[in-house]
C-alpha cells in the first residue's frame, strides 16, 4: 500500500509538472512580448512628449519675442506721434507740464509715458507722477535699449515694472527733452502670455536677481538657475519643469517652462495599463494552462492508470477517451492490451494443456514403474507354474512368495502415488486463524532436525511480528515441503536458514539453502505440477506449497543461481481486523 501511495504521489507530481510547464510556457509566450511592447510604447511616448515640450518651449520663446517686438512697434508709433504732433513749442507752465504725460499717454494708448529734460529730471510722468521734478534714476537694461525698469505708482509707494519702451528726443516748450513711452511687461501681461502659450512665461534679470512673472508663477519659487545655459530642467516644489531661455538683453532673459508632469502621468498610465494587461495575461495563461493541461494530462493519466492496471494483471478493455496523438496512443495501448489478453489466454490454455500433458506423462511414468514389475512377477509365476508346478512344488512356492512380495510392494507404491495425487487434487481451503509464524517455524524444524545430521540449521526470527492469518497445518505442510527440499538439496551438508521479517504488506518467511542452486529453466518451471529434479519425486511438492500460499492470499518467489544456493520467500499478508477463529 505504501508503494501504491508513492506511485500515486509521483503521478500527481507528474500531473502538476505538466501543468506547471504549460503555465510557464504560456507566461513566457504572453508576458515578455507585452513587457517589450510597454517599454517600446513608453519610450516612444517619452520621445514624443519631449519633442512636444521642446516645441512648446520654442513656441513660447518665439511668442514672447513676437509680443515684445509688437509692443515695441506700438510704443515707437505712439511716441513718434507725440513727438511729431503734440509737443508744442510754447513755453510751458508747471501745471501743463505735470499733466501732459497723463493726457498724452491716455490719448495715444501708452500706459507708460514720461518726458525727461536734458539733465535727466522728470518733467512729466503718467506712471509715476510723484517722481516729477526728481532724477529719473538708472533703470536701463543692459544690451536692450527698448527695455527698462520703470517706476510706477503702487499703493502708498512705488514698484518697478519691466517695460517695453520707445525713446525719442524732442523739443518741448523750447526745452530739449526725451519722450519715452511704452507698455509694461508686467505680471498681468506675462500671465496672459502664459495662458496663451500653455507654458510658464517669465523674465529673469540676472543683474538684479529678480523675476518678472505672474503672481503664482512657479518660476519665481524655483531655486536659482542660470538661464545662460539655454535650457534645462528644474525641480519646483516637487514638480520637474523643463525650461528654455533666450536673451532679451545682456542680463535680461525670457524664460519659458513647462511641467514634466504630463510625461510622468502618461508613462505612469502606460505602466499601470501594462501591469493590468500583464495580470490579465497571466490569469488567462493560468486558465488556459489549467484547461489544456487537463485536456492533455487527463487522457495521459488515464492511460497511465490503465498501464498500471495492465501491469497488475487487469487486462479488461477500458476505453480511454482522447483525441489526436494521445488518442492514437490510447488506441494503440488498447490494441496492445487486447493482444496481451489474448496471448495470456492462449498461454493459460497452453499451460493448462502442458500441465495436463505433464501430469499425464508423470502419471504414465509413475504408473508404468510399478506396473512392469507386477506384470513381470505374474509372468514369472505363470511360467514357473507351467514349467515346474507339477513336479517341484517347493520351488513354486518360493517363487510365488517372492513374486507376490514384489507385487504387493509395487501396489503399495501405486497407492502412495494415487494418495499424493488425491491430496493435490483435494487441497482443502485453509481455515485461517491468528498464527505465530515464529512458533510454527520452530515446530516444523523440530520435525526435521533429526534428518539434518550434516546440515546446519539457522533461524532468524524477528521479534514482535504480527500474527498472520493462516491455516497452521497447511502452512506447516508448505514449510515442511520447503525444508525437506532444502535438506534433499544438501546431501553432503550445508546450511539451512529460516528467517522471518516484517515487510510492507505483511510478513516474509525465507527458507534458504546452500545447495547447488537452480538453473534458469529449473527456476521458471519450479512450481509447475509434476515437474521435479529429484529421482522418485512426484513433482507436486512445490505446486502444493504454491497452492497453499496462494490460498492464504500471499505469494512465493524464488531466488537461485547455479552454485549459489536457493532461497524461497513466502510473503503472507498480516492479520486483518476480522479474523477467522478456529
Amino acid at each position, binding site marked *: 500500500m505504501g508503494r501504491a501511495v508513492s506511485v500515486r504521489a509521483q503521478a500527481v507530481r507528474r500531473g502538476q509538472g505538466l501543468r506547471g510547464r504549460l503555465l510557464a510556457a504560456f507566461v513566457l509566450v504572453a508576458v515578455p512580448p507585452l513587457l517589450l511592447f510597454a517599454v517600446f510604447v513608453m519610450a516612444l511616448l517619452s520621445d514624443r512628449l519631449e519633442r512636444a515640450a521642446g516645441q512648446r518651449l520654442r513656441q513660447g520663446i518665439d511668442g514672447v519675442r513676437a509680443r515684445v517686438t509688437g509692443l515695441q512697434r506700438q510704443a515707437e508709433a505712439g511716441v513718434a506721434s507725440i513727438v511729431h504732433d503734440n509737443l508744442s513749442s510754447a513755453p510751458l507752465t508747471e501745471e501743463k507740464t505735470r499733466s501732459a504725460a497723463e493726457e498724452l499717454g491716455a490719448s495715444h494708448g501708452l500706459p507708460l509715458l514720461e518726458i525727461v529734460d536734458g539733465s535727466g529730471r522728470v518733467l512729466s510722468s503718467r506712471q*509715476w*507722477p510723484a517722481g*516729477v521734478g526728481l532724477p529719473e534714476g538708472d533703470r536701463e537694461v543692459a544690451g536692450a535699449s527698448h527695455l527698462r525698469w520703470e517706476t510706477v505708482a503702487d*499703493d502708498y*509707494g512705488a514698484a518697478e515694472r519691466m517695460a517695453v519702451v520707445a525713446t525719442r528726443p524732442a523739443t518741448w516748450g523750447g526745452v530739449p527733452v526725451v519722450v519715452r513711452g511704452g507698455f509694461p511687461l508686467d505680471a498681468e501681461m506675462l500671465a496672459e502670455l502664459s495662458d496663451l502659450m500653455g507654458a510658464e512665461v517669465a523674465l529673469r534679470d540676472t543683474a538684479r536677481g529678480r523675476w518678472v512673472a505672474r503672481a503664482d508663477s512657479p518660476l519665481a519659487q524655483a531655486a536659482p538657475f542660470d538661464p545662460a545655459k539655454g535650457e534645462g530642467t528644474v525641480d519646483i516644489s516637487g514638480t520637474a519643469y523643463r525650461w528654455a531661455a533666450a536673451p532679451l538683453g545682456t542680463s535680461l532673459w525670457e524664460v519659458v517652462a513647462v511641467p514634466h508632469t504630463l510625461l510622468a502621468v502618461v508613462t505612469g498610465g502606460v505602466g499601470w495599463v501594462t501591469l493590468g494587461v500583464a495580470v490579465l495575461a497571466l490569469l488567462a495563461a493560468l486558465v488556459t494552462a489549467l484547461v489544456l493541461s487537463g485536456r492533455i494530462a487527463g487522457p495521459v493519466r488515464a492511460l497511465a492508470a490503465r498501464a498500471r492496471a495492465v501491469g497488475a494483471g487487469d487486462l479488461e478493455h477500458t476505453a480511454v477517451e482522447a483525441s489526436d496523438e494521445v488518442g492514437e496512443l490510447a488506441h494503440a495501448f488498447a490494441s496492445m492490451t487486447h493482444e496481451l489478453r489474448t496471448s495470456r489466454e492462449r498461454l493459460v490454455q497452453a499451460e493448462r494443456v502442458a500441465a495436463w500433458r505433464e501430469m499425464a506423462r508423470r502419471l504414465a511414468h509413475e504408473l508404468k514403474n510399478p506396473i512392469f514389475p507386477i506384470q513381470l512377477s505374474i509372468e514369472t509365476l505363470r511360467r514357473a507354474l507351467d514349467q515346474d508346478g507339477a513336479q517341484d512344488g517347493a520351488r513354486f512356492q518360493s517363487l510365488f512368495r517372492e513374486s507376490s512380495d514384489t507385487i504387493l510392494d509395487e501396489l503399495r507404491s501405486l497407492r502412495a502415488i494415487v494418495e499424493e495425487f488425491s491430496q493435490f487434487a483435494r487441497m482443502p481451503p485453509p481455515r485461517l486463524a491468528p498464527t505465530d509464524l515464529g512458533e510454527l517455524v520452530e515446530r516444523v524444524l523440530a520435525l526435521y532436525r533429526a534428518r539434518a545430521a550434516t546440515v546446519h540449521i539457522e533461524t532468524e526470527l524477528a521479534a514482535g511480528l504480527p500474527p498472520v492469518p493462516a491455516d497452521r497445518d497447511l502452512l506447516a505442510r508448505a514449510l515442511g515441503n520447503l525444508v525437506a527440499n532444502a535438506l534433499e538439496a544438501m546431501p553432503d551438508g550445508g546450511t539451512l536458514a529460516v528467517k522471518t521479517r516484517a515487510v510492507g504488506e505483511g510478513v516474509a518467511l525465507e527458507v534458504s539453502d546452500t545447495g547447488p542452486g537452480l538453473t534458469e529453466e529449473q527456476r521458471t518451471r519450479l512450481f509447475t505440477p509434476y515437474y521435479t529434479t529429484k529421482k522418485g519425486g512426484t513433482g507436486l511438492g512445490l505446486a502444493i506449497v504454491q497452492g497453499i500460499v496462494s490460498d492464504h492470499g500471499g505469494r512465493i518467489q524464488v531466488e537461485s543461481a547455479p552454485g549459489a544456493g536457493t532461497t524461497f520467500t513466502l510473503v503472507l499478508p498480516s492479520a486483518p481486523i476480522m479474523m477467522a477463529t478456529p
Partner: protein
Amino acid sequence: MRPEPNVVRAAAAAMVLALALGRGPSARSALGPRYGGELRIAVAEAATTVEPSVPRGLADRILAGLMHEMLLGVDEEGRPRPALAQSWASAADGREWTLRLAAATFHDGAPVGSADAVRGLRRFLRSESAAAAHLARALEGGDEYRRRGTEALPGLIALDEGRLVLRFRVATAVPLAPLASPAAAIVSGRGAGAGPFVPTTPPSARGVSATAFGRHVRGRPFLDVVRLIAAPSDRAARSEGLAADVAASATPLPPAAGLLLLLLDPAAPPLADGRVRALIAASVDRAQLARHFLPGGEAAEVLIAPTLLPALPVPPPRVPPGPAPVSGRLVLRVSSEVPQSASQRVVAHLTALGLEVRAVAAPVASAPPGSPRLLVWYPEVAEAGLALEELAALAGSPAPVRTALEAADSVRDFDRRRADLQRIEESLRATHVLVPLARLPLPLGARSGVHALRATASGALVVENAWVEP
C-alpha cells in the same frame, strides 16, 4: 443772566423760518441755520471705539466729537473754554483749581455730577495719553496713581455734586489744558456720553448713526441725524446708494491742522546715522509736495502749527558735509490718513537719495522699533506745550527735550513760555527724527448746502453747529 443756548437757537430758527416762508429757495441758505436734516459723512475707515480715548484715526475723532463731551476745551493759546465745566477758579497761587460743573445731562438721562467727573478723570490718568501723563505728573499723587502704585489720588477731589477740585504739586502754565483731551471725556456710570449726538446703532464696519441730543450742554444741535459711513471712497459710498454730504474732496475743510510727519526712527541703520536723517529732511521739496500732492495743503517747516506756536524763522535746509552715505533698504509704514500721492512723493524723494523703499499701509502705532513712519499727526490737545510733549514721546523722549518741556511747563509768563517752547520745538526738530513735511486739512469736503461744518486743530469735525439746506 445769559439766555440758555437752546433758547437762542430756537429764536434764531423761528426767525429763519418766518423769513424763509416769504423767500425762494435760493435765498434760504442766506437766512441762516435750520433745525432738522441728516448729514452723511463718508470716511475711509470705520470708527474703532466709542470709549473715551485718544483717537487713532479720523473716524474716531469725528465720533468722539459727536458722542462725548470733556470738562473743558482749549483755545488756540491753550486757555480753557467751558464745556461740561462751566467755570473754574484757582487758589493757592495756581496750585488748586476748582471746577464748577454745568447743569448737563448724559444721554441716559442721568445728570452730570462731580463723581462722574472724578471717575472719568481717574480713568483718564491711567490711559495711553500724553496729556494724561502730563496731568499725572502735575497732580498731587498723580504719578503714583498713574503707575498703579496706589489707588489714592489726593490731587482730585469731588467737593460736592457740582464741583471738583484739582490740586497740583506746582503751579503750571496750562494746568487745565489736559482736560480737553478726548481721552478725558466724561461718561455716566453706564457708559453714556454727554456729547451733542446720541449713537442709535453700535459702531460697525459699515459705520454708525447718531441722533441729536436735545439736552446737550450747549443746546440741541441743528441736525437731526448724523451718519458716519465707512466707505473706501465716495464712489464706493455712492455705489451703495449712500451719497455723502461730507466726503473726500479736492476742496477740503480748513484749517490745515494736520501735520504730515515723517518719523525717522534712529533705532536701526541707515536712519541711525544723523547725517542720513538730516539729508532726508533737507531733500524733501515741501513746497512741491504741498502744492501738487496735498490738496489744500501747505508746506510745513516746523512741528507745531503756527496757530498754536508761532515759528521761529527756519533757515534753509543744509546738506551735511561729506559723502552722502545714503544707501540701504527701508520699509516705510504709512498711515491710512496720508494721501497716497503724498506718500508716493515722499518715497520718490527717498529713492532719489539712493534708498530702496517699500511703502506699506500699516497702523503706525504698532510699528516695530527702527521702522520709519509717515503719518498725519494731530495734537491730542491743541496746546503747544502738550503738543510738543506728544511729539517728544513720538521721537523717543530725548532727555534734553523732556527736561526743557518740564521747565517750560512751570513758566507762567506767556511770552517767555512761548519762547521756551519755540526753542524746544527747534531742538526737537534738529534731531531730524521728526521731519515735518506739510500741513494738510481733514480729507473731507462738504457739498454745497452744508453749512457751519468746522474742523479743529486737533483734527476733529465740529458738527453740533452744522446745518443743511432742505
